[in-house]
């Protein structure tokens, strides 16, 4: 028996695969044809303090090996959500993790406290890195100071596992990660989407109603693997790696880079069987190499290279 389990703070997961926030609804949408008991956890669509209609349409564009989205955090707001939706998550055969977004430190604290108080919700992911809201949606994850502030407020609001989701759209993701850990994060989700844009050449206007959007899918995998690798060198808390995972080998790339768990978002749009396949094949991959626990390969991408030949002036 290969041990695929992972601990994120005080949350124990039997399988190391989470379904990315905003990509999997509340799990119910996939339940008719996916065995939710075999997928690890669902991270719910991000919820905010106030209801949000979301961005104008179109909200999606397919791009080479990826897609742009600009949903704009459409959600009914925390009060309606608690009253009408959360109770339904009780009987999900997988772990349900809430996701909270906001526009001020106060927003985050308020929403986290209310949501985390519910038994149906086993952990909270703090989305401080949504690139698809006009104002300061992503600012938190772009500034170490703001990251510290908002994470401390969320930490004070709940004792449940707190996963902080980071943005790749920064000069130094390691610095932000360190700040998030110092402020009390139990784990980090790395990465949210990469900012991008696409223009319709015939209509001569942006393809997205929101003009800009977030890039996801295999196109960003090399960017995400590096971000995980760098964050793993900056912190000691576990990382949930994500960005373009579609196969078991993709997932292993993230484990080797330093992720303790992975998240699958856009991959579900290619084939909803991917998460179950990864869980099965991951066990098989480890078994074949006589590895008994997934934990043993986390961060094990040897980096023994060095330039054997140098000119005097060389830095590299």
């Amino acid at each position, binding site marked *: 028996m290969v041990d695929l389990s992972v601990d994120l703070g005080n949350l124990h997961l039997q399988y190391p695969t989470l379904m990315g926030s905003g990509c999997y609804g509340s799990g119910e949408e996939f339940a008719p044809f996916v065995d939710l008991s075999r997928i690890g956890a669902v991270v719910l669509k991000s919820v905010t303090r106030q209801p949000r209609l979301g961005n104008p349409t179109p909200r*999606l564009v397919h791009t080479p090996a990826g897609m742009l989205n600009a949903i704009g955090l459409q959600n009914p707001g925390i009060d309606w959500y608690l009253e009408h939706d959360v109770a339904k998550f009780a009987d999900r055969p997988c772990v349900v993790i809430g996701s909270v977004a906001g526009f001020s430190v106060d927003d985050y604290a308020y929403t986290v406290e209310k949501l985390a108080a519910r038994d149906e919700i086993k952990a909270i992911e703090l989305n401080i890195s949504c690139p698809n809201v006009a104002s300061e949606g992503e600012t938190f994850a772009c500034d170490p100071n703001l990251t510290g502030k908002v994470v401390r407020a969320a930490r004070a609001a709940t004792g449940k596992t707190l996963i902080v989701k980071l943005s790749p759209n920064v000069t130094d993701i390691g610095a932000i990660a360190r700040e998030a850990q110092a402020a009390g994060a139990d784990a980090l989700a790395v990465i949210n989407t990469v900012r991008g844009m696409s223009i319709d050449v015939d209509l001569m206007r942006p393809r997205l109603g929101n003009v800009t959007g977030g890039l996801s899918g295999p196109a960003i995998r090399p960017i995400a693997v590096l971000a995980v690798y760098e964050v793993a060198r900056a912190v000691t808390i576990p990382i949930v790696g994500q960005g373009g995972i579609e196969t078991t080998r993709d997932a292993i790339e993230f484990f080797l880079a330093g992720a303790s768990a992975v998240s699958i978002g856009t991959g579900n749009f290619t084939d909803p069987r991917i998460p179950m396949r990864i869980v099965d094949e991951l066990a098989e991959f480890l078994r074949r190499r006589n590895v008994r626990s997934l934990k043993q390969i986390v961060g094990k991408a040897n980096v023994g290279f060095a330039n054997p030949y140098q000119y005097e002036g060389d830095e590299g």
Partner: protein
Amino acid sequence: MPTISSAPTVHTVRITDRRELAPGVVVLGFDAPEMVRVTRPGAFVMVIPPGGESAATALGIYEADGRRASVLFFVVGKRTQELAEMRVGDELGVVGPLGNGFSLDGLSDVAIVAGGVGIASVLLPAQALVASGARVRLYYGARSAELLVDRERFAREGCEVLVSTDDGSMGHSGYITDLLAQTDRRPDAILACGPTPMLRAVARVAAEMNVPAQLSLEETFACGVGGCWGCVVPLVGNSAQAPSFPPADRNGSDVVYARVCKEGPVFWAHELRW
């Protein structure tokens, strides 16, 4: 609209037949008896890319009879190109049936409007209506005669078929909605599927005729099952199809974004706020 989304499954099917109706217009038939059993007119499927290299593709269910279902598509980009290369005997993953279909109860005289590839979603409702004894007139427009694919099929199924082409190579030269607007006969209902500009025109004509119109919309999809909120369209807040959300009638507007894949793809024209 009648829901069909309670029974979707991932079907692993084999291609049983492949026809090229016109250059770049392909019908793929496959064996999927359980899917046929629960399919309703207006349903669609998400076709998993055989190479695993892109997002799944939304396609209407064209035919559904006995053990066999089919999809009809136009080759417009990478994914439809990949599907066009499938051969008889190849295996394909198909998620469905999905979505809420057309509402056909009690209709006795129906105008169906199809533009281009929209033809793919209207055979099933046409068959069901004819079977229930309704009069069905198909208004079918395309760029050219060649692309008026399978038009005889609809005649054989018992529809009266009126056609138009953009280039005048067959039927009325111009938009198919011109013909709809000129009709002397006021149907009980209009069902339509096609490009968005055509659907907007249908909505206008239907409003003028004071006939309820059901429009099958197309949007770029990601998940296709209601999980990502990417495929939305603005709907009046008090629509029976509106998703569970607080009333959003502020700023003088009572709108909510509904998912084309989950609340749709068929919507009442008068409830759309697009």
